[in-house]
């Protein structure tokens, strides 16, 4: 099964990108937790190194088989992840008001992360099934719609609004990519908008508050708006060159909330300034464009669409997080992939990117 061409076609650029991002992330986490190293902060930084090691293991694991296997097992994988989502609602660990984690003894993981990948796989399978690209109409889309709605509702129940919405956004952008007839598109958007008020009613108070405080951050500068304001102050005060590594006062003095998870980018912005933030963004941009390139060069349609799915996921997670910490989007609690602290998210991201590598490596192979 092992092929020398796999080595020849190994995507060094993708790997290099990931290594650079991992290095920056760990460097930044060290600074973000520098002030709290006495109270477990140093563990955060060391732990993330282990998470990256495990992440890279997952990454390589995902390259060892031909991705077309996934096309075959798409639905079983999907149903397993749905089952896990149900399980987490029944026996999941409750942390700060939401039930998102499955405790596996040694580690705990978020089934929603796996669900994300499985949805990407079934969507790729669905949109590559029929011969040739054509414009999809609404009646063709009931199946993917259902496939998205089931995990969406389950994740919303946890509740994890950020992940649930992200799922919809990613899926929607994939549907847009495969081309939908404009009439269907109008109906889709209209129905999404008509559902929005019901979602608003279903939201928990703190979630509504987050959205309200995004719209008017000055309304409650010490409450929910506090996070946004402090993050903006942290990033803005970095100016062009930044305050210097380990010298971010917003970070060091705890003005910045969750500085090692959701607001890790703000730490970078404060300490490395405009130049550092833009460089990091360009790295992500390069990763995304490289992903598109992989989609373009894929040998089959499933690989192409799957690559698009992974790119869409990466794109949205970066945009939502950076938009959030810079005050462009509401605080929804989405970490910055490959950058924020967090094992479960990192592993699933690395796994997804491993798939991308898988597609890239097999671009010249025929079945």
């Amino acid at each position, binding site marked *: 099964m092992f092929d020398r061409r796999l080595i020849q076609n190994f995507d060094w650029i993708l790997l290099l990108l990931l290594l650079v991002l991992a290095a920056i992330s760990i460097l930044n986490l060290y600074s973000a937790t520098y002030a709290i190293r006495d109270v477990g902060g140093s563990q955060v930084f060391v732990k993330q190194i282990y998470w990256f090691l495990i992440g890279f293991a997952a990454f390589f694991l995902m390259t060892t088989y031909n991705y077309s296997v996934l096309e075959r097992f798409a639905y079983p994988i999907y149903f397993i992840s749905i089952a896990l989502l149900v399980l987490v609602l029944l026996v999941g660990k409750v942390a700060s008001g939401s039930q998102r984690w499955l405790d596996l003894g040694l580690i705990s993981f978020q089934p929603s992360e796996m669900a994300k990948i499985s949805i990407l796989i079934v969507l790729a399978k669905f949109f590559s099934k029929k*011969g*040739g*690209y054509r414009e999809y109409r609404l009646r063709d889309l009931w199946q993917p719609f259902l496939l998205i709605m089931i995990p969406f509702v389950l994740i919303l129940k946890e509740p994890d609004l950020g992940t649930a919405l992200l799922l919809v956004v990613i899926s929607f952008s994939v549907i847009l*990519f*495969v*081309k939908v007839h404009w009439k269907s598109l109008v109906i889709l958007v209209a129905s999404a908008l008509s559902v929005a008020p019901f979602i608003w009613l279903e939201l928990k108070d703190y979630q509504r508050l987050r959205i309200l405080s995004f719209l008017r951050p000055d309304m409650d500068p*010490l409450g929910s708006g*506090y996070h946004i304001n*402090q993050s*903006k*102050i*942290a*990033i*803005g*005060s*970095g*100016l*062009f060159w930044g305050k210097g590594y380990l010298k971010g*006062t*917003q970070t060091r*003095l*705890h*003005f910045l909330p969750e500085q090692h998870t959701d607001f890790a980018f703000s730490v970078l*912005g*404060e300490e490395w*300034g*405009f130049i550092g*933030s*833009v460089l990091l*963004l360009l790295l*992500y*941009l390069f990763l*995304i*464009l490289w992903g*598109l390139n992989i*989609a*373009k060069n894929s*040998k*089959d*349609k499933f690989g*192409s669409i799957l690559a*698009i799915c992974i790119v869409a996921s990466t*794109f949205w997670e970066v*945009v939502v997080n*950076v*938009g959030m910490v*810079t*005050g*462009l989007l509401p605080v929804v609690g989405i970490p910055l992939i490959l950058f924020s602290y967090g094992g479960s998210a990192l592993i699933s991201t690395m796994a997804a990117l491993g798939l991308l590598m898988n597609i890239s490596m097999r671009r*010249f192979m*025929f*079945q």
Partner: protein
Amino acid sequence: MKRSDFDPNSIEILNKQLKKTTLLILVVFGVLILRLWFLQIVNGSTYRTKSESNRINLRAIPPFRGMIFDRNGEMLVGNRPSYDLYVIPEGVQHQKRLSGSLKRLIGLEPQVIEQKLDGASRRYPFRPICLKRDISRNELAVIETHRFNLPGIMIKIKPQRHYIQSNLAAHLLGYLGEIDEDQLKSGRYPGSKPGDLIGKTGVELKWQPFLNGMRGGEQVEVDAAGRKIRSISLKPSVSGGNIYLTIDKDLQTLAERCLKDKKGAIVALNPNNGEILAMASSPCFDPNLFIEGIDRTTWGRIVSSKDFPLQNRALSGQYPPGSIFKIVIALAGLEEGIIDPEEELFCNGTYTLGEHTYRCWQKYGHGMVNLRRALVESCDVYFYKMGERLGVDKIARYARRLGLGKVTGFPVGHEKEGLIPTSKWKLKRFGVPWQLGETISMSIGQSFVLVTPIQMASMMATVFNGGFIFKPQIIKRAGKGGGDKGYNFKPKMIGNAGFKKENLDFIKSALVGVVNDTRGTGWRAKLKNIKVAGKTGTAQVITLEKEKEKDFNADEIPSRFRDHAWFVAVAPAEKPRIALAIIIEHGGHGGKVAAPIAKRMIMSYLEKSLEVFACRP
């Protein structure tokens, strides 16, 4: 063909879609980078400032306010520690239990704690909140012994202004109060902040910058919870200077005791340099009440009281001088050559001028009186005649030469000028010419004449020190630190009345007679070892017209119609060391009420005798 399941058409679509997507992604990243540009470059400095003010807290270090002593170095105003009860919200483990304990231990109402904790900023859980200011020593002891049981509770100590003898010399010392908005804007209090205590009256006001010192400050780096991380820079405060007043604490205490339950004022000064030895005004107030902000009802009671406790009667109480004014008439007559001391006039108890009859206080008259006897026995008729000879304007000129009708220049408080009428003044003021009858009543210190106690004391000093007028002083010494360094105040002579020595000597001798002669009206001020000189005065409160109908028995008149009792004195007469002016409002006869007070004051000051402290009621 490398792409097995792609038809050419779909590859075309894929590439088209990929191009669109790439463009879209570039646009979105462009927006993000623009956003960063906006935050970090366009508004960067604003955010930098915000992050600085986030982390740097300016903490004021209040200066130690200077203390005030009397002339002998006895402390009058100091600073005592005030123990304030604070709670740190973050330290409270069990709010219910804490408020229960505090209620039990020091009777603090649980609602107070609840309110304060609820009102506290969520952002600064480590910032202490004051629960109760200035707790008593007993409360402090109880709190300290139960400290282990009261998590989150702390005691802060700060200096509090302390007027040691509560209301001793309150009018002179003044009191502290919170700086108000106008004062803040005026720029006269550099470095002051809202909430600062500043001198509102008295020496505390006059010497505010000197006493206050300079505020220091500390730039402190704090974290998001308001905890101090480190000190960035420190500027220590500069303590205020100490002030030594000219007053003598014992004499001041005696003066106030003598005025207890009376209304009136006492001024004692050194006739040789104008130093005020005592200045009392009754009723009084306790300056300690004002420090922590006086409550409305107490303030209302003080301000609206008919007795005006905030007024310093020694400076701003304007009274008719009564018979004391005879000193002015006598001096004027001698200087003008109008009075021959040997000339004897007949007093039959009345003096008739036109339709009016003016009475002498001695109903049956004094018989034949010369100037000395007229002063000693305070014969009114004699002075009616002399006043008539002099005329209003000459009297006024001499009165002004003795410092009447204008402020003495006492540096603290609101001094009134009093009033020395002239014919011109009357015409201007009332549009009516001066009447001869008014000169007659002016001769015995009635009519329009008004004087203040400090003017009277100063006048006595001038008569006895050879005609010099000194500006009354209240500050003897002011110095920083230990008090050895600093400045000493020198007497300030503001004029020489320019009277002939023999005339002054004559008056002096007559005033000695007032106290020491057998029929002198001031005999109650007589002392065995000290030659006291003085003059009684009884200032009529109601007009002479009405007086005619009233009974002469002063004790039976309702007190508000009773005359003000005056006594001025100097001792020892040969080598004066103290000049006194005493007025007791509605006290009746000066000789009876005010003279005994003068005697006790002089005895206390010159003999430092202890027995005088047993002040008779």
